[in-house]
């Protein structure tokens, strides 16, 4: 009984430590953006270029960092749910079928992404939650903010 209790306590502690250590992706937007939250479905559509307008009519400008960055890897896994090769083919196929979608603009680093979002109304991008500062606004995703247990972008 005591061994079982100790085992469960150890497992719980290990789980909490591992969860805490997982990097989280924060969804950042220009400070003038009128929404405070976005659904994971809408976020995916914006990043994939299928949703081009915010509710107030402003144009969505999606930004992403370069392929080798940890932010990009998390974005592909948790938001796009595609590998990079599949994503490239997705954009090409959209063009081939006459569907006009815009791939995200690419910037060199999360700092560059933050600067772009900070000066571009309608811009949206994803950076590591640890890189967020007060130049950008962070959106909740599916009702949860980075750091909360229910937050899924990790």
């Amino acid at each position, binding site marked *: 009984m005591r061994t079982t209790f100790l085992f469960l306590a150890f497992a719980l502690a290990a789980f909490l430590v591992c969860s805490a250590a997982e990097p989280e992706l924060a969804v950042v937007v220009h400070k003038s953006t009128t929404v405070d939250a976005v659904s994971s*479905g809408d976020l995916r559509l914006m990043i994939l270029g299928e949703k*081009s307008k915010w509710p107030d009519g402003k144009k969505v400008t999606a930004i992403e960092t370069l392929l080798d960055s940890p932010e990009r890897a998390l974005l592909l896994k948790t938001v796009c749910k595609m590998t990079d090769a599949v994503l490239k083919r997705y954009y090409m196929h959209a063009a*081939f079928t006459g569907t006009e979608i815009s791939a995200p603009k690419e910037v060199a680093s999360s700092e560059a992404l933050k600067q772009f979002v900070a000066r571009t109304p309608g811009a949206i991008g994803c950076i590591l939650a640890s890189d967020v500062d007060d130049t950008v606004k962070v959106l909740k995703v599916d009702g949860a903010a980075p750091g909360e247990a229910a937050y899924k972008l990790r």
Partner: protein
Amino acid sequence: MAIPNGPTLNIRGFFDFNFGVGSVANPLVFPIVSNGCGTCGNPVTPPHTAFQAGEFDLFLTSKLSDHLSFLGEVVLGPDVTNEFGVDIERYQLTYKANPYFSASAGRFHTSIGYYNTAYHHGNWFSTAEGRPIMYLFEDSGGVLPVHMVGVSFTGEVPRTEKLGLHWNAEVGNGNTSTPAAETSVQNFYSDRNFKATNLAAYVKPQFLPGLQLGGSWYHDGLSPAGLPEVRQNIESAYIVYFNSDWEFLNEAVLLSNHLLGTTRPFRSPMAYTQLARKFGIYRPYFRYQYISDNVKDPVNILKGTYYGPSIGIRVDFADYAAFKLQFNHLFQSSQPAGNGLNAQLAFTF
């Protein structure tokens, strides 16, 4: 020639090269038909072993303004005469006012079902080597009007974001009224005043990214020589699902040709299912298809019943090139069942 501050023309190419063995290996000419009666007249498709060029496809796009864009597809390909022919398979100028309304004019793939608008002339995009028989191009013996010359309107339905509801409406020249015409698609001259119309809709629900369900209804009036007027209806329904690993396509189409003054239409049901699973760079797949074109239908060029499996594997050995190997077995009501094995290199450049 670059136009200062003007639109830029982007060109992307697609090509496939094949080696086929057997009577039903060739994905483009499959099977060969001529005005047979279905069970007594179609010539037997001879087995063949040949290296074959597929379609050399030049895909052109240009953005003329924030709202205006152009798309074109020029295809060069050989046929059984060994001559290369040139076809302008698609050309469309599109004005996109907003996500809810865009209008296109030109020649496009009719929004019947899913496969016809998802896959065009670049074989690299499709998992399998060739189109399902029901979606064969008109000049390959296909019975459906897969191309239309006219106008197309499409968009999202407002306030249905969670459902992802889209609509589509098209008006244009349907296919020629003469089944044996050399060119079925009426690019320049229409043999009748009646225009074909097509209405389609589909949903892409957010709760399951990759799922799409849809349907369409096509209506046209044909005037075949020596016959009463024909009212043609084509209904389609489909459900498809894609994710990073799986691909599952299911479609059904019912083609009805009703000669005015007769009691019942000639009905031709068609369907296929296709399943593929990705294992790294390997993607094995299976397709089963069925098409039954009423042998008494005076409008259809393809007559008889065809069904059978295709099994293959696609290997994405490079980001923009793939090798495919596919075996086809096809029961054909007009002749003995056919077998074929085709190897294909498909790539984009």
